[in-house]
């Protein structure tokens, strides 16, 4: 196509879209766009934005959509502010919100009070959906209960017996510690010591020196990427030789990039199958690559993409009305998405039965079964 023809086509398309001027529906996206975990927030934002762009390019869509991205900085106080901002804006019909559990815990009340339907795309603390019965709150990703059960069983099956636990003292880290400890003891693992640390701690020399004396085979870490990088890196410095076992919170490209070769052999667990293993996942990855974002989608990008689509499908069906959209979302059952089928239980929690095991091999997070660790070619630390 010549450039004049292309320009002409663009003009035609523009007039066409003007002619059929659709109503614009505003959706909020909330996540950590700045701060230590912003890699995940930006990945989620881009993914949600991609879903909106693809929808707007679809001639069959009844409405045109606008994404209002807000930054919760992974801080509860900021989260409540931006959640209130979104919820108080009458033009916002629904929100795709939160990577950080601590923030979501603070904002669910706000959404409930303002009657804003929300789909959580990344936060994993069970209490977000289960502690209250707020009809506005839905979640497409799974909770940390399932991932820790699988984690404990799997690691015990690898014949490890002795653990030291380091967790951050946010609701998120404490939750991981609680569920993992519970399942580990049930499965016969032994916990030599548990260390709660603050989420912005820099130096772990004291904790790791104590852990070195305890001689654990595995260090379980309940927390997110920046702290995970720090602890794994300092384990090496202080000569602690053990497997580093993380949670879904460290499954990010940023973790591998931040550690380089030290990331090798780190294991972690996440609910849901990896995007590339799902029928729609390939489509997502292709579209994301095509959109040429400067940041990767990270682990929870597909969930944000699915959440945005879920919300837009509900709007398409019942129109831009918060109550109707909420009721429509409540009814979600066997909904096809890039992260698999979505069905909400009585607390609007998506049941994600599948937990995927990951290991870092050669600078990449690989599904355990596909790795050389599973085939025995590479051994984990003993």
């Amino acid at each position, binding site marked *: 196509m010549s450039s004049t023809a292309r320009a002409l086509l663009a003009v035609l398309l523009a007039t066409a879209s003007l002619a059929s001027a659709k109503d614009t529906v505003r959706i909020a996206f909330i996540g950590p766009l700045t701060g230590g975990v912003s890699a995940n927030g930006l990945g989620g934002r881009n993914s949600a934005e991609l879903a909106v762009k693809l929808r707007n390019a679809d001639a069959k869509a009844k409405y045109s959509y606008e994404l209002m991205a807000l930054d919760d900085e992974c801080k509860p106080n900021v989260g409540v502010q931006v959640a209130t901002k979104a919820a108080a804006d009458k033009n916002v019909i629904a929100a795709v919100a939160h990577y950080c559990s601590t923030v979501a815990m603070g904002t669910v009340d706000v959404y409930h009070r303002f009657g804003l339907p929300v789909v959580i795309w990344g936060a994993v603390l069970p209490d977000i959906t289960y502690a209250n019965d707020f009809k506005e709150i839905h979640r497409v990703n799974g909770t940390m209960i399932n991932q820790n059960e699988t984690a404990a069983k799997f690691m015990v099956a690898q014949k490890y017996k002795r653990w030291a636990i380091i967790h951050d003292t946010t609701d998120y880290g404490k939750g991981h510690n609680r569920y993992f400890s519970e399942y580990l003891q049930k499965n016969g693992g032994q916990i030599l010591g548990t*260390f709660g640390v603050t989420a912005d701690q820099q130096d772990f020399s*004291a904790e790791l*020196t104590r852990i070195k004396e305890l001689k654990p085979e595995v260090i379980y870490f309940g927390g997110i990427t*920046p702290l995970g990088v720090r602890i794994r890196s300092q384990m090496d410095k202080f*000569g602690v030789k053990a497997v580093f076992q993380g949670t879904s919170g460290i499954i990010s490209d940023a973790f591998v990039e931040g550690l380089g070769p030290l990331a090798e052999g780190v294991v972690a667990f996440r609910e849901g199958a990896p995007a590339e293993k799902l029928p729609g996942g390939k489509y997502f990855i292709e579209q994301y690559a095509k959109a040429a974002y400067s940041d990767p989608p990270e682990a929870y990008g597909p969930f944000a993409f699915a959440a945005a689509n879920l919300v837009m499908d509900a709007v398409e069906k019942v129109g831009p009305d918060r109550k109707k959209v909420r009721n429509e979302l409540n009814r979600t059952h066997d909904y096809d998405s890039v992260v698999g089928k979505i069905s909400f239980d009585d607390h609007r929690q998506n049941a994600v039965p599948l937990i995927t095991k990951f290991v870092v091999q050669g600078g990449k997070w690989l599904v355990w079964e596909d790795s050389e660790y599973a085939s025995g070619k590479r051994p984990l630390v003993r």
Partner: protein
Amino acid sequence: MDPALFAQHLLNGVMLGVIYALVAVGFTLFFGVLDVIKFSHGDVVMLGAFTALATSIAASAAGLSSPVILAAMLLAAIVGMALVGMLMARYLVLPLRNAPTLNVLLVTLMAGTVIREGVRLFYPQGSNPKPFPRLLPTGAFEFGAFTLRHDSIVLLVLGVGAIVFVHLLIVRTRLGLAIRAVAQDPETAAAMGIPFRGTVLATFAIGSALAALAGVVNGLYYSEVSFNMGLLLGAIGFSAAVIGGLGNVYGAILGGFVFAALQTIGAVALPFASAYKDVFAFGVVILLMAWKPGGLLAERSAERV
């Protein structure tokens, strides 16, 4: 406790103390000459570390050897941060000299946020933690539970050397004399022909160069830097300077080691979770302030800076 283990904790504490002291000395120098608190200091530490990181990437791409890369990193970070410090003093702090000190505090706090978010936005993938190159020898001496890493020795020598250097600079040189004179009485010093502005700029350059060194030492010690590492480090450096007695260089050094000791005790010797070690350390700082409001080595005007 096993003596080897005790020695290990002691060494860990000393390493921390050196980093804190390097940061704290900057706070105390700035307060000494201008009676201001420069809250962007922690972020200058971070900027120094990132300058060194970027230099090392460029230098290793140019195929230089480890010692040369290390020297280039240190040089770039120290010179760069000295310049940043001078620019801040010239355009942010000095113009506000006659305004309430609260304004300086606020302006530098904002400047720190600009630096921090600037690195996050403009350094490639700046919001992620970055691996810092391992350029120091990796071996270690092992004595039972006590491990003395070769790189720790180098960093210790580097940190202590810098502190001794600044000490000598202040007590033995004409510049040091000028700094001490301005700290004591700017008007009289100016009347004696000591250039006020030049002395202030030099002080900010020295303090910021120390911050750069702290950033590099921090990066080499932990092998990892992140854009928000300066936040807590700044708060700790400031507390250390205050415990020691703001305005007194020896106080800042002492304060740095005291704070590191408190954190180590909080994590190791006390019966509660190590998450409370900062609560414990900062709590003791509050008690120390109540006991000695002027700091452990309270500033006597003759000894200022």
